[in-house]
Every structure is written in structure tokens, then in C-alpha cells.
């Protein structure tokens, strides 16, 4: 092995090891330790220099109290369930909103498509925080939407939308919509139109042709889009804290509050470990489906 190769492999490797894997192991460790050991100045209790004795000592001190605490306090339990609920429902809504847009883009005249693509990508480059914030001015009691509805005489008094779960759903659908549109559009654009013509020649109506041909063929795009929305939404923090209310329970928000206001790091770490266990399942499923997709194309 020459030095050049060693250097090329070593630098990024060591960087990721030190700043990704090691910190992660620390979280695992702290989630299993007492609060007294983990508050600053935090002292790691594992001394490799002590050899086997140190290792034995280390493992005997680990405890699962933080996880038991999470189990006994219904707040965490509810937060997990409601994060999953919010993620599932908002992914479904995003799909229902995103599919017709992607479909329209794929049907649009050829020369528009590049511009339409850019219009979908542009919000992605715009600050996430600002896009979430823009809804605060719209959904508030004196916000744009309420003023418009009252001016039109649809409602007599302002609706409470901001700081409820409805606002969280709107925020999620809005910010994650490009992630849904792009993969579905990619799948629909590749679709061979002659298949649809064949279906219609054989007596399908346009609607049945859509259900029997277009929809099944766009499935890879739908699956990818749903995962791309679902995975980040579970751990979402900005949207529930700006648009949600005090009764919006999402695990990312709880973790952040546990860390910043309560300073309870072992519990925050235990929440993080459990959050990861929840996210790992969809991530692995997504990986698998992507690999299968890649193989099918070969």
C-alpha cells in the first residue's frame, strides 16, 4: 500500500470515524449512564488503560434506568406514537398533493419541462427555516388566511390554525413537496406513451388506462418519494416548534427540549437512541427497494 493511497483513504476515514462514529458511541454510552456521570464536566468512565478490569467495571455500571424512565413516563410514549402518526398522515397527504403536480409536469409540452423542474427545485435551495416561517404570517389569528376568509365572509371570527397539528401538516406538506414530486416525475417521464395508446386501443377508457398502466409503472417513484418524505419527518424539529402548539408531540422537539431546557443529557441520549431505532426500519427498507430498483434496470 503506497502513501498516496493511504493518505486518500485515511483522511476522510479518520474524519468520519472521529466526528461521526465515536460521537455516536458516546451517545449510546451516556444513554446508559447515571445523570451524575453525564452532566458537565462529563467524564468518560471507560478507561481502556485499565484493561479487562476496566471494561468489566464499565459494563457493570451501565444501567437501563433512562430507558425504563422513558417507558414509565407517558409523555415519551405518546410522542413516539404521535410522531409516527404525523409522519404517516403527512406523507399520504404529500403524495396526494404531489402526484397530480408530477403528472402535470410529465404531460406538459417538452419545452416547458426544464423550467418546471427548476421551479420545483428552487424552493429546495431556499432556506428551510424561512419557508416554514412564511406560514406563520399566513396561518396566524391575524394572518393572511384569516383576513382573506373574513373579508370574503366565509367565517365570522378568525380560525385557530397556527399552533395546532393542522398547521404542522400544512408545514410538512409544503416543505417536503419537492421531495415527493421529483422522483414521481422521473418515473412518469420515462413512461412509454405507446403503452397507454395500446391500452386505449384495446378498449380501456382514459381513467382505467391510468389505473392499470400509469399508476403501476410510476410505483418506484411513489415508493421513493414516500420514503424521502417519511424518514426526515419523523425526527422533524423546526416545523413542530414553529407551527405546532404545546400539545404537538414530536420526538425531535422533545429531544431538543430535553437537551436545551432540562439539561437532562442521559434522557436526551436515550430518546436519541430510540428515535434511531424507529428510523432505521424505513431507512433499511428504502435502501433495499433502491437496490432492487437498480438491479431491475440492469
Amino acid at each position: 500500500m503506497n502513501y498516496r493511497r493511504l493518505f486518500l483513504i485515511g483522511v476522510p476515514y479518520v474524519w468520519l470515524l472521529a466526528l461521526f462514529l465515536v460521537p455516536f458511541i458516546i451517545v449510546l454510552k451516556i444513554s446508559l449512564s447515571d445523570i451524575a456521570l453525564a452532566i458537565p464536566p462529563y467524564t468518560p468512565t471507560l478507561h481502556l488503560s485499565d484493561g479487562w478490569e476496566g471494561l468489566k467495571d464499565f459494563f457493570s455500571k451501565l444501567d437501563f434506568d433512562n430507558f425504563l424512565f422513558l417507558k414509565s413516563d407517558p409523555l415519551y410514549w405518546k410522542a413516539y406514537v404521535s410522531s409516527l402518526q404525523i409522519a404517516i398522515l403527512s406523507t399520504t397527504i404529500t403524495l396526494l398533493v404531489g402526484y397530480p403536480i408530477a403528472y402535470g409536469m410529465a404531460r406538459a409540452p417538452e419545452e416547458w419541462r426544464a423550467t418546471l423542474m427548476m421551479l420545483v427545485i428552487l424552493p429546495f435551495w431556499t432556506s428551510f427555516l424561512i419557508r416554514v416561517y412564511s406560514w406563520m404570517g399566513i396561518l396566524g389569528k391575524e394572518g393572511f388566511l384569516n383576513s382573506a376568509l373574513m373579508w370574503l365572509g366565509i367565517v365570522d371570527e378568525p380560525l385557530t390554525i397556527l399552533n395546532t397539528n393542522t398547521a404542522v401538516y400544512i408545514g410538512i406538506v409544503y416543505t417536503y413537496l419537492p421531495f415527493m414530486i421529483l422522483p414521481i416525475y422521473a418515473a412518469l417521464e420515462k413512461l412509454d406513451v405507446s403503452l397507454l395508446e395500446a391500452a386505449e386501443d384495446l378498449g380501456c377508457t382514459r381513467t382505467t388506462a391510468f389505473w392499470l398502466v400509469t399508476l403501476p409503472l410510476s410505483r418506484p417513484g411513489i415508493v421513493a418519494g414516500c420514503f424521502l418524505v417519511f424518514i426526515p419527518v419523523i425526527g422533524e424539529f423546526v416545523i413542530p416548534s414553529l407551527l405546532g402548539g404545546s400539545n404537538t408531540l414530536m420526538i425531535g422537539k422533545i429531544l431538543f427540549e430535553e437537551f436545551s431546557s432540562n439539561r437532562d443529557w442521559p434522557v436526551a441520549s436515550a430518546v436519541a437512541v430510540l428515535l434511531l431505532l424507529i428510523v432505521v426500519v424505513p431507512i433499511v427498507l428504502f435502501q433495499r427497494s433502491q437496490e432492487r430498483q437498480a438491479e431491475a434496470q440492469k
Partner: protein
Amino acid sequence: MRRFSWFNATSLTLGFAFLYLPMLILIIYSFNGGRNVAIWAGFSTKWYGELFRDQAFLDAAWVTLRVGLMSSTLATILGTMAAYVIVRGGRFKGRTVMSGMLYAPIVMPEVITGLSLLLLFIAIGLDRGLVTIVLAHTTFTMCFVSVVVSSRLVTFDQSLEEAALDLGCTPWDAFFSVTLPIIAPAVISGWLLAFTLSLDDLVLASFVSGPSSTTLPIKIFSAVRLGVSPKINALSTIMIAIVAFGVITASLINKRSVTKRLKDEQEAAAS
């Protein structure tokens, strides 16, 4: 392609209205003279003036810019190296671990990455500040750079590099005079992506920043938690304008180079 129906036109119009109206309202109301955000009180640029007189915002913007430039440059170097090693490095011990570590931060919830980095910095006694934010952002964004660069490396013809080596280039020369110019567009878009992600990041920065190093997103977040503020509308408008300008310019340049290449190819074929 089949007929573009009324249904298609309606869903496109509604969809793009949904995507753009909130930002449009934000921009319009940043020029509102009154303090109340929903009542139009005449055109005024006073919030822009107040924004530029607010030292705390200017400081935060300066911190954000420095962090963005440093971390995206570092991330581009590290991410390009990582991509090169993964795509071209052949088999080596720990390759699977490395590609796992390159993929994980992209899908990992940011709150977890932030918390774990914070605990690391405390464990090794590193004071929280500019350095810790740069380290966190570099780690997070280098993974995105490596995705962008490796997708280009996969499609590029390896025999070009081999030819350079056969003609007497050292491996470094071959990389800098053959490989790098070819993958340059991907490296540049990787840098831009890293820079944008760094400018935009709230979660990682909130975990690892110290009291002396507030970034713009942290500042915005703490300001808007209390409600809508016209000053933040003005700031958002400036940021949206910069991004729109950048993206549109980049796509125009890209379009021109594509048309030029097509034209060159046609001329070459005709001659």
C-alpha cells in the same frame, strides 16, 4: 406526448401557487410600512433599514458566512477524496464501514447528529464556538458532496486517466490535469450544495454553537419563536433573492454550455 388536459393545467397552476404564494406574500409584506403583519400600511423600506442597523444580525450574518465558506471548502475536499476512494479505490479494509459512514449522516435525524457531536466536544473539552460549528457542518455536508461527486465519477471513462498514466503522468498529475477538470462541474455543485446546507442549518448549529457564535438561522429562530416580525420578513426577502439569483444564473450558464456543446457536435458532424 399526449394531450395536455385541463386537469393537468389546473393541478400545475394550483401546485405552483401553493409552492410560491407563501414566499410571495412574505416578500410583499416585507415592504409593509406598518408593524402589524397582515394589514397593509403603505410601501416602505424601513424594515430593511432597521435590519442593517441591527448589529446582532450583522454579526450573526458574518459568523454564518465564515462558517459556510470554511466548512463547504473543507467538505468539498474531504467529500471528493471520499468519493474517489469509494468509486476508484478498489477493495480495502473498512470500505463498507466507510460507505456506511458516508451515507448515515444524510438520513440520520439532525437532532441525533447534533446531540452526539455536542457530547463529543464536551468529552474532549473543546470549547463551543466557530470551530465546533465548522467541524459539525463539514462532517454533515461532506456526505452530500461525496454523493454528488461519486455519481459523476461512476459515469466517467476511466481509460482517460489510464492513458494519462501511460503517457508518463504521475498519479497526482493525472488527477489534477485529467480527472479533476472532468469532474469539476460536480465538485462545484457539491460545494454549492454544502455551502447552502451550512447557511441554512439550524439544528446542528443550535447544539454545537457557543454564546459568542450565533449563526443567522439561530438568530432567526429565536426571533420568530415569539411571532412574525417584519424585520425577519426583510431578511428572508434578501435571502430568497440571493438564492433565486444564484440558481437562475447557474441554470442559464448550464443551458448555454449544453447548447454550445450540441452546436459544436453538430458542426463537427457536418464537417
